[in-house]
């Protein structure tokens, strides 16, 4: 099988990550991408969707885990299942539309093989044609394949493609506190997806986007064109108050380096981490009439205060999502090829909270994350220039050395550091290397040595 003939071995992957630098092949090589899909995206827990996207039995929506087409569906037992979107017969995608309701079973549109919503085979037309053929001994006769494992964490659906591997809690550890905080911001402790996601195509490697979420030294440079111009126009208008929404949302990107240094970055093992330990650009977002009262009623005043005092900026759930708790937003970085990434940006409604919160969340999403967003334009330009620039053979290594301690770092423990460190990027590559190689063959030489 041609596609499976990949030549890189675990030690090659290991050699691409060297403490403070990574080889550009991690962003540009098609083989590395294929290995990421086969190993990294199979061995880790990857975001699929939110349970409110499939509220009723038979509701489904289609998406991808890495390059794997999958269906999230509400089964007849009310559980959420994640199935490979492929008919076990000839490979036809079972569902093509982005969302819908399939009733009690899926039916392939090609030859009408049908399946329960947990994937089990229900019926094949003219089944006697398979009598004595041995079909029942093939995995093709077992129905639509489910992913290795599924976890519904407070409404967020994650999947591990591999059957065996790290547990959900063991993988995410205390990083789950950011999802907790986002959900706790609802007086009912519940979120609901609000409309379809923005879909923004980037001609760059997915890891550039993930790294940029905790890159606190780019906003005042790359976004000067949008945030700096906003400030200038506002001043020219005589600094009117209240500030126009664009000022509240975009202008904080121009905060000085000291603001971002003091903000802090926390890293957790397995590649997770967040900016905004002490404060963030979202710190002043919660003062909306009636909200604190509703929160106090639900949680008691001191607990409500502690929930709202948490103002984490961007939390990376490695490998491929970012969550903004204070504004109920999730960005999903879906790798389509080494140089193509689809970014889907979702927003969620806080059940029982005032509508103004959702209005600001929607505004933030369109101002920052849309293909029509001026802030988005600033970022995409940098990613795509980097993707092109990395083809240069002048220098082969990408530098991640800001606030590197000068010796090998220990990523196995949680750490809080200066908000401009690139430690979180290094943390991601530490996890990248480990989850890539756990299921990869060692080099031929060492495999023989191991056998001896």
């Amino acid at each position, binding site marked *: 099988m041609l596609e499976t003939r990949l030549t890189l071995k675990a030690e090659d992957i290991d050699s691409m990550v060297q403490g403070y630098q990574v080889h550009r092949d991690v962003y540009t090589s098609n083989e590395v991408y294929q290995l990421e899909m086969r190993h990294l995206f199979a061995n880790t827990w990857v975001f699929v969707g939110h349970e409110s996207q499939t509220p009723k039995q038979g509701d489904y929506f289609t998406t991808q885990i890495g390059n794997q087409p999958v269906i999230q569906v509400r089964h007849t037992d009310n559980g959420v299942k994640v199935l490979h979107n492929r008919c076990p017969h000839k490979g036809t995608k079972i569902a093509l539309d982005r969302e819908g309701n399939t009733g009690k079973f899926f039916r392939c549109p090609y030859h009408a093989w049908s399946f329960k919503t947990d994937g089990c085979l229900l019926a094949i037309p003219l089944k006697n044609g398979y009598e004595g053929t041995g079909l029942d001994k093939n995995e093709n006769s077992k129905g639509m394949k489910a992913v290795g494992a599924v976890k519904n964490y407070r409404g967020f659906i994650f999947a591990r493609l591999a059957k065996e591997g790290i547990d959900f809690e063991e993988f995410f550890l205390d990083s789950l506190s950011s999802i907790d905080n986002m959900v706790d911001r609802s007086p009912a402790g519940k979120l609901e997806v609000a*409309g379809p996601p923005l879909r923004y195509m980037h001609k760059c490697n997915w890891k550039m986007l993930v790294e940029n979420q905790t890159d606190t030294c780019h906003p005042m440079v790359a976004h000067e*064109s949008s945030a700096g111009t906003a400030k200038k126009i506002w001043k020219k208008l005589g600094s009117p108050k209240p500030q126009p*929404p664009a000022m509240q949302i975009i202008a904080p990107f121009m905060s000085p380096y000291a603001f971002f240094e003091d903000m802090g970055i926390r890293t957790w093992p397995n590649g997770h981490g967040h900016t905004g330990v002490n404060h963030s650009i979202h710190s002043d977002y919660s003062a909306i009439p009636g909200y604190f009262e509703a929160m106090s009623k639900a949680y008691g005043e001191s607990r409500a205060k502690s929930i709202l005092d948490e103002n984490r900026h961007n939390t990376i759930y490695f490998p491929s999502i970012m969550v903004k708790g204070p504004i109920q937003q999730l960005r999903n970085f879906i790798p389509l090829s080494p140089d193509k990434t689809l970014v889907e940006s979702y*927003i969620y409604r806080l059940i029982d909270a005032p509508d103004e919160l959702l209005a600001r969340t*929607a505004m933030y999403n*369109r*101002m920052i994350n849309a*293909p029509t967003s001026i802030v988005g334009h600033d970022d995409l330009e940098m990613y795509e220039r980097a993707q092109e620039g990395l083809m240069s053979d002048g220098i082969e290594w990408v530098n991640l050395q800001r606030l590197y301690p000068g010796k090998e770092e220990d990523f196995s423990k949680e750490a809080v550091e200066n908000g401009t460190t690139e430690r979180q990027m290094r943390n991601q590559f530490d996890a990248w290397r480990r989850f890539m190689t756990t299921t990869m063959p060692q080099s031929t030489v060492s495999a023989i040595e191991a056998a001896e």
Partner: protein
Amino acid sequence: MSDISKDDLIDFIYAEARMLDEGHYDDWLKLWIPDGHYWMPLDYKQDDPLFVTSLMYEDMFMLKLRVERLNGARTFSQKPKSRCHHVIQRPFVDKLDNKEGHYVTNTSMHYVETRLDEQFLLALTATHELKRIKGSLRIANKRVDLLNSDAAFGNIQLLP
């Protein structure tokens, strides 16, 4: 005060498209009334600009920021600059109320935007809500429905 004719409305829509194509943004901003909004929905037949995501829902401050940014010294995504081109079909005049000074047009367009070696085409329908202010037409609201609003796009940097 003289009445606005159907031709006046149609000429206005054509003139606006030309301003955008030729990059006369200062003139274009002057077409708007101060509390106008430029809305580009994300979903097909979306009826809510506020509580779900749109591609754009921009007030005058945001529009001013958008067009001023295009000329900024450090606007790297506009080095080199994008160019755009509207091909518009004769607008339908859906409302012509000279008594209230209130008008609505519906215009199909093909919009092309280019930068460097890339060029893309969007098919869209623009709905203009116009008002007569001191005898002149002004844009009260503009809604732009992309035919493929739910597709994944790269940068759309100018104004369809």
